[in-house]
């Protein structure tokens, strides 16, 4: 069992009203990785996430966590949404503590321990001073930090993030990127991070996937009904605590390389070309 990957997506295809959304998606994620998935909008990123969550079942193929098939959302896979999705009737403290409370047996000694743990997580995301505020009283960045702490506190095996910083101002977004890398390193987390922002994907990931429908099945023949595939699966180095790297030439060339691969409908490569690339990490 030692070599069982944490998350395995095995030959998954998904359809919607007879239209192919995802086609032969294959990848394995190991413990400790920070995987980013990038792709043009409408390429099926969120569908893939819902499959991994267990909100939808794959029409073909299998998804498993530590070797067990995924059935429905549970505590193994934490989630952070773009829209924060905090519970409006609970204050920050109660929101973050919810996961612990749902599973506790409500005795006083335990409650005190849980409260301490909650405050620890609040301080990790710099929200200790806002513990008693309600979500409507917080800015977007603060709400997202609360949502991150809310998911982290029950220590999920993998944290799924669906465009978590997409709705934030650019400078707040930079702060959040540094924060999430910091948390990832300190807590030895495994993260699967979806974004349509290439720079974000390359900056954050130890590994980047490109999901895109822009490829050819056979030479000079474009199929109309083709779903998105993983066109690139590449290991990257990380750059914790500094967003400076985003201005370096290496970073730029990487961004433009990926843009060419996944975001340009006119430039399409043959399936054979990228399949070899993809197989590297299998």
């Amino acid at each position, binding site marked *: 069992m030692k070599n069982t990957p944490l998350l395995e997506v095995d030959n998954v295809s998904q359809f919607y009203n007879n239209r192919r959304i995802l086609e032969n998606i294959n990848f394995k994620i190991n413990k400790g990785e920070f995987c980013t998935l990038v792709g043009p909008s409408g390429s099926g990123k969120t569908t893939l996430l819902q499959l991994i*969550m267990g*909100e939808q079942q794959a029409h073909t193929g299998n998804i498993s966590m530590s070797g067990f098939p995924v059935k*429905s*959302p*549970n*505590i193994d*896979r*934490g*989630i952070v*949404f773009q*829209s924060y*999705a905090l*519970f*409006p*009737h609970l204050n920050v403290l109660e929101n973050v503590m*919810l*996961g612990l409370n*749902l*599973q506790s047996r409500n005795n006083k000694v335990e409650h005190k321990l849980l409260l301490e743990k909650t405050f620890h997580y609040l301080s990790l995301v710099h929200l200790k001073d806002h513990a008693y505020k*309600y*979500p*409507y*009283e917080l800015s977007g960045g603060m709400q997202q930090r609360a949502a991150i702490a*809310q*998911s982290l506190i*029950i220590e*999920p095996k993998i944290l799924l993030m669906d465009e978590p910083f997409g709705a934030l101002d650019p400078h707040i977004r930079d702060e959040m990127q540094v924060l999430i890398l910091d948390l990832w390193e300190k807590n030895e987390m495994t993260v699967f991070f979806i974004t349509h922002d290439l720079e974000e994907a390359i900056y954050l990931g130890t590994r980047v996937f490109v999901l895109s429908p822009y490829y050819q099945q056979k030479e000079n023949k474009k199929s109309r009904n083709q779903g998105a595939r993983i066109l690139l699966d590449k290991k990257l180095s990380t750059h914790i605590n500094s967003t400076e790297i985003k201005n370096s030439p290496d970073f730029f060339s990487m961004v433009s390389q990926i843009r060419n691969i996944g975001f340009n409908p006119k430039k399409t490569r043959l399936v054979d070309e990228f399949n070899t690339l993809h197989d590297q990490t299998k």
Partner: protein
Amino acid sequence: MLEKIKQLREIDKAKKIFLATIPFIILLMLYSLASTLRHQDNANDKILPSISQMADAFYIKAFVKDRRTDQYILWQDTFASLKRLAGGIFFAAILGIIIALHIAMLPKLDMLLSPFLIFISMIPPLAILPIIFIAFGVNELVKIMLITIGIFPIITRDLVLTIQKMPKQLITKAKTLGATQAQIIYTIILPQVTPRLINVIRLSLGMGWMLLIAGEAIASTEGLGYRIFLVRRYLAMDVIIPYVLWITLLGFLIDKTLYWISKNKYHWYCKT
């Protein structure tokens, strides 16, 4: 500077109150005029009693013990009516929220019950009033039941829509935090729909009063509606009009109280 803003705000407030009272004053003036004119023609006119006549009648009902029953009639009536109204709304709220929570969370129950609920919510409750009285008699419980039957479909339908409109992501999130189905229903959804329940109750109060008065008018021995329909026989407008105003005032106060509760206890609901 701040002082000035404060002053301006107070002037605004005074203006608002002043404007709001104008229609009331106009109505009062028109009534007094009409009443005076009729009394000039016939000093014994009963149709439009003067304001002082009404005040006298109201005083007698409120602060003079009735010789026959040894009770203060207004308070006796008010207490009886409010008890029925509260009971009817209470049962409707409980029934409504239980059905709504389970319909919204269990698709099969939704398929089973929703069309039926929509159908019975179309029945005018007053039309089945005779059926209820014939079938169950004319006791206290039946008058409460009439109110419950009349308003629980509205409450249920509204809450189902409210729950179905809630972001699905919240439920997914709750599941990833380890919530069981029961916890999702009772600790995640229930507290979020409670303020909406209060609002729906506010909206259905009018309907509740209507059914209450109708029930009391047909079969009762006390109650605000009973009294109005009793004194109607003697053309006692000097009692009827104050009673109607009293009912209106009670409704207004209940509505304001519920609003106050939802604003203070569920402040997050008003802001989102």
